[in-house]
């Protein structure tokens, strides 16, 4: 099962689209924005370069979660690879759990690269007591999005999963305030953001860098989303693999 997880991760790293959209895009986007707005401060007095670190790391992690789950999974179901695995001794719960694990592993490059860019190019510095909860929460907090990806991949054909995953990813990023701070927009967007798991997810990070620690309410909301989307993914997976 470990080897399975390793090969899963390996194959995504060989996927050009994954590398461009998920690994490079957030870093480049961060560097551009941070170089323009980096010296400004947000309402709480945090430098924008740090604020954007959280936004772009969250965006990268979100994009990676969905990209490495939905489409590959739909393809494997359709191409018969899933059946090939189903006739090995690997239990069927292990297949989906491995997918989740591998997808989590694949979140790390974008998280770490954006952080590295922030430190090296923007001179962002934080005590270890902030880095650790920041990276951990942004890492573990991807579970609901991976579950959403697997849900889409179990439900739709590969052709339909591609746009569906893209739309979800852009909607979550935009409406969750990862691209533009919702405080800067306000109004209905702000209300809408509170319904997005992505907003609460990124809010974990924003609170950490503001020195507030992890906000309990956001943690609970992200966990709730993980339970709901995880349940939906498990249900769709069972439906997709059920023996007629």
């Amino acid at each position: 099962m470990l080897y399975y997880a390793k090969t899963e991760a390996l194959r995504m790293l060989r996927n050009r689209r994954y590398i461009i959209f998920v690994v490079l895009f957030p870093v480049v986007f961060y560097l551009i924005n941070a170089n323009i707005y980096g010296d400004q401060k947000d309402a709480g007095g945090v430098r924008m370069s740090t604020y954007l670190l959280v936004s772009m790391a969250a965006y990268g992690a979100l994009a990676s979660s969905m990209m490495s789950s939905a489409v590959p999974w739909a393809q494997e179901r359709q191409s018969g690879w899933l059946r090939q695995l189903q006739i090995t001794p690997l239990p069927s719960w292990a297949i989906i759990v491995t997918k989740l694990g591998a997808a989590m592993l694949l979140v790390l490059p974008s998280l770490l690269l954006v952080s590295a860019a922030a430190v090296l190019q923007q001179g962002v510095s934080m005590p270890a007591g902030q880095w650790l909860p920041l990276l951990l929460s942004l890492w573990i907090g991807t579970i609901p999005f991976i579950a959403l990806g697997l849900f889409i991949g179990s439900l739709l054909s590969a052709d339909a999963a591609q746009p569906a995953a893209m739309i979800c990813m852009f909607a979550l990023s935009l409406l969750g305030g990862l691209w533009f701070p919702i405080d800067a927009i306000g109004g209905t967007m702000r209300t809408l953001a509170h319904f997005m798991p992505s907003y609460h997810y990124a809010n974990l990070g924003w609170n950490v860098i503001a020195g507030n620690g992890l906000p309990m309410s956001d943690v609970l909301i992200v966990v709730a989303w993980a339970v709901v989307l995880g349940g939906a993914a498990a249900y769709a997976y069972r439906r997709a693999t059920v023996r007629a």
Partner: protein
Amino acid sequence: MNAIVFDHVSKDYGDVLAVDDVSLSIEPGKTVALLGPNGAGKSTSINMLLGLLRPSRGTVSVFGRTPRQAVAAGQMGAMLQSGQLIPELSVKELIDLVRKLYPEPLDLDEILKLADLTDLVKRRANKLSGGQSQRVRFALAIAGAPKALLLDEPTAAMDVESRLRFWESMRGYAAGGRTVLFATHYLEEADEHSDRVIVIARGKVVADGTAAQIKADVGGHAVRFTLGEQPAAGLDLLPGVTAVEVAAGTATLRTSDTDATLAGLYRGTTLDVRDLQLSGADLEDAFLALTRES
């Protein structure tokens, strides 16, 4: 204990009856061909054996267990009728991935040798030709050293040369006392590469035995002549004859013994036999006779 048992197994998809009350058993160590035309129910039977489909009625067992239990114990390996590989992985990575999921797999080198892939280990799956991918799929099927190997039309997409080598590999694998069941459309393939042939058509077993027995049963030879206006009655009673067809004044007698049939025709009847033609053991004819809609 039998390797494979079907006990009054039926499978329907809505109102299509794909497998119709099939009962059979296969001893361990045998290589058996499942022969039938398109839509006969071959893939459905194989998928039930692997636990990918559940029978609508009856039970399937493998080494005395349910198919799912046998799969979980690593006793099953299969080449399904359709299936693609993961494009980004190399041949070696794919084989290793599957090997490591089984409790007692074959050695990598042995698999590569059996599947004739030694030169392609590093090749990525998306750069393989159709026949090469088939070989990789064979490698994945045997990777876990399964006691029962199921192959669903394994030589589709292979050229003549690859087919020959493929069957050689299959024999090599079966030689270790393993049970092999393969589905095919061709009587010739079934004849050459199996100990026993089970012919299915429209979901039912229509013949079962060695290839030689089946050929004899359906009358491997044909005697054809112009009957004209003469009555056909009694032709089916001639020695050796298994079936009689009369069309456009021409009679075709299927027979398992040409000499006896001819002797009977000339000495035992008063028919005026003209334009006599004999055709040898035409395997495809025999197969068609068996599986044709009756």
